[in-house]
């Protein structure tokens, strides 16, 4: 919480604990930490629909259900899962939109 507040004022002053996905590796970021199934997959779907082909979305979740849900989303035609990792109790996914159809 405190980190979030500080980051509003001085983003550079906040030490982030070993990032799973580096900044610059993705085009958009979606933070769904604290939300339970099925919110992360629904918000990810919505965020992806606003991306152009070739762009990537970094999704951060704390919901273990998203391991299945987000992989399911990435298996849809026109999407791929570029990366997924676990850091502490957080799950990180990078999804890429391969075409807009």
């Amino acid at each position, binding site marked *: 919480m405190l980190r979030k507040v500080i980051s509003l004022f001085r983003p550079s002053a906040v030490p982030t604990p070993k990032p799973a996905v580096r900044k610059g590796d993705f085009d958009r970021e979606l933070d769904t930490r604290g939300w339970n*199934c099925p919110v992360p997959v629904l918000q990810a779907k919505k965020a992806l629909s606003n991306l152009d082909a070739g762009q990537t979305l970094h999704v951060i979740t704390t919901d273990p259900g998203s391991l299945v849900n987000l992989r399911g*989303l990435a298996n849809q035609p026109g999407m791929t899962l570029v990366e997924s990792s676990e850091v502490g109790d957080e799950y990180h996914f990078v999804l890429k939109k391969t075409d807009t159809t």
Partner: protein
Amino acid sequence: MSEKKLALIATKGTLDWAYPPFILASTAAALGYNVTVFFTFYGLQLLRKDLNLKVSPLGNPGMPMPMGMDKWFPVLGTAIPGMETMMTSMMKQKIKKKGVATVQELRDLCIEAEVKMIGCQMTIDLFDMKSEDFIDEIELGGASTFFEFAGDADVQLLI
């Protein structure tokens, strides 16, 4: 890969049972399914503009209650006036605390994901409900409207 289809029938109008149809419908839509939900009998309460859903401990031995009340609290006690309101507000608090979306939020996500919702005309007539009390995004129909869609759906469920 051709689009998969999901057909649901929602028959229950309580706060707890509002979740399964809306969670399944919205998730399936996100995963590329074409979804239609048919709301009949008490399920129509889920389509009201003004959602006022409640959960009742009465006649529900499977419902976990605080302080192990589900173990020792007399069944008749769950019929005390105000119990329903109390259990409803407790459940709403829990939903919020655990980061579970509200029914309203899930319904909005379903609408956004173009989940088709059909309200049962017969139920509306039977209970003298007013069609203007329901959200505008629904269509009214009957059993045959459901079968038009469900006949070739990949998954059909009654909830």
